[in-house]
């Protein structure tokens, strides 16, 4: 009887999980399907899920009209560059907070996180002026810096919670053996925390890839990533839903594939990380 109940509960949970997953995935699926329709089919009052004339026309148009690969390259440089730079800063910061705590460490961590609660538009003008004066507008270097700064609080938090799991005695032993701070971090801490560092890196790549405020405001023609590429297909006067869907699919598929292959790391990262 108890066994039957447990199977029933499992089935219910599985059904709920699949329903929620379906609801979350449906807009992406619909975007993918629409990208293979004609513009007329895309706005049809009785849309079809699979029974329509599939076409690659939208992808051809998008590739002919926009320098997709330039945007793609910019997204790669910005997301990976900011993630690596962020790790270089976040690892020592998280180390000191995890292993050399003071009474103000918690406050400092909370303050760092609180900067994420500030609406970005609140600091738009000062950052724009700084970028203008330092010649960073529409440069990949500028965006790498700003993406690093935006995601740094989350990176520090994630790494901090990871490092807290590592016994201090391990690091103390290294110190007893004469390791410097750099050696202690590089040869002892990093190998142990590698899964956590990898998931922090992956999450940051995804966050930087999807960021669509600063990447739109601070770029023009040279450093614009895929977010700007998608925005160029949205029109206030004209129905380009199929082309917009094709552009969106081309922008999200790379990160979707990365997410698919690294989902175990990501789930582990999120369950051990800042939300723990």
């Amino acid at each position, binding site marked *: 009887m108890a066994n039957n109940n447990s199977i029933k509960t499992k089935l219910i949970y599985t059904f709920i999980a699949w329903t929620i997953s379906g609801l979350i995935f449906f807009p992406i699926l619909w975007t993918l399907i629409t990208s293979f329709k004609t513009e007329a089919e895309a706005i049809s*009052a009785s849309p079809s899920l699979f029974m329509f004339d599939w076409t690659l026309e939208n992808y051809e148009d998008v590739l002919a009209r926009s320098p997709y690969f330039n945007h793609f390259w910019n997204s790669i440089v910005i997301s990976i560059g900011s993630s690596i730079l962020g790790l270089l800063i976040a690892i020592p910061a998280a180390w000191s907070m995890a292993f050399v705590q003071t009474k103000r460490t918690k406050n400092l961590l909370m303050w760092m996180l609180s900067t994420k609660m500030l609406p970005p538009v609140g600091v738009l003008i000062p950052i724009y002026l700084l970028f203008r004066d330092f010649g960073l507008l*529409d440069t990949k270097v500028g965006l790498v810096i700003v993406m690093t700064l935006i995601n740094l609080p989350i990176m520090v938090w994630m790494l901090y919670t990871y490092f807290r799991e590592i016994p201090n005695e391990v690091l103390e032993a290294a110190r007893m053996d004469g390791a410097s701070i750099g050696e202690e971090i590089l040869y002892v801490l990093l190998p142990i925390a590698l899964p956590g560092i990898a998931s922090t890196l992956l999450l940051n790549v995804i966050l930087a890839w999807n960021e669509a405020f600063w990447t*739109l405001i601070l770029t*023009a*023609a040279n450093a*614009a990533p895929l977010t700007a590429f998608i925005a*160029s297909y949205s029109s*206030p006067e*004209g*129905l380009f839903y199929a082309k917009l869907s094709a552009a969106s699919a081309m922008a999200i598929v790379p990160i979707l594939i990365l997410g698919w292959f690294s989902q175990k790391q990501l789930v582990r990262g999120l369950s051990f990380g800042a939300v723990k």
Partner: protein
Amino acid sequence: MSIKKSIIACCSLFLSTAVLAETITIATVNNGDMITMKELSKSFTSENPDINLKWVTLEENILRQRVTTDVATKGGQYDVMTIGTYEVPIWGKQGWLRELDKLGENYDVDDILPAIRNGLTVKDKLYAAPFYAESSMVMYRTDLMAKAGLTMPKAPSWEFIQKAAKAMTDKQSGVYGLCLRGKAGWGENIALITAMSNSFGARWFDQNWKPQFDSQEWHDTLQYYVDSMTKYGPPGSSANGFNENLALFQTGKCGIWIDATVAGAFVTNKENSEVAEHVGFALAPDNGLGKRGNWLWSWTLAIPASSKKSNAAQRFISWATSKEYTELVAAKKGWVNVPPGTRASLYNNPDYMAAAPFAQITLDSIQSADPINPTVKPVPYVGVQFVAIPEFQGIGTAVGQQFAAALTGQMTVKQALQSAQRLVERAMRKARYPK
């Protein structure tokens, strides 16, 4: 020896051209006419090998946010900006734009329609050149009108529109008599309702900048809008903008649609419109008070004061807004796809008039809109469907939210107007009007 010299000369020429070529960055919206301009710009660069073009194409609101930030901080990211008739007088007055005084001898400025040109001129200086312009008009289904036993006049009244909408509505078949913008925003429902209010005798402000939403004229306007949309509009109309209504009209769900004249080319396009053969056009409605409910808008090309490549930028603008460009589009894409509404010569062209069934209505609508005297009673501002003051984007959207709430039934018409009156009074007090 001579071959060697020739090679060196050729290389030098190539290198000097490459080194001297200036690159101008053009920010534009993703509208059909702009996409055509980008496609045909190869013709410009082949005629002007010393100028390279870089394009930044964005959605209208994102573009507005970006170019406003850039022009206000003198960021210098763009050399040519696509801006609307709302921005030009404000930015021109602020000194944020360069005067267009080097458009060339062959650039026929006097050919630009006066209604459009006036809106782009500040103290007799032209600050932007119109790329395409639009007003608003009535688009209707001729087959449904015939079925209802009615004939649409060339210049209908609001009363007739309501009568026709009632006759055409067949909710069981999914046909709705009247489709109007309902989405909240200064460029969305407010564009339509403000233009509509002009024909009802209403105005945003009196001569002392006192908001007028407590007037009977505003009450009549909003009551008509809410009543008509509730009875004859499609479900969920408070989420509908231009694109949503275009999709509804093209798929046969709307009897009458009042919106931008630029839609004429879309609804008569047989590739995308299921009702292309049954579309008629008429002037925007009125109430017999001397003003029709049509707006006036133009997408223009302007040069920010921070651009260091003003000469090259003016050459590009001169090319893109010239009569020759119109002919180029006609040759490559057909007359019906020519950017409309800016030059008188286009409407004297029999080829264009034959190809575009909506051309005469577009011209009549543009010519009847008067941004300097937009309302029945006098006003201290310029603009037909907007008030050309910097505060309007904010207050326009806030008032649009109140009107959308009235449409969804969250508020009564009276409550929405009271709320609009309060919030505009507060905003104007904070901005220290009258100035």
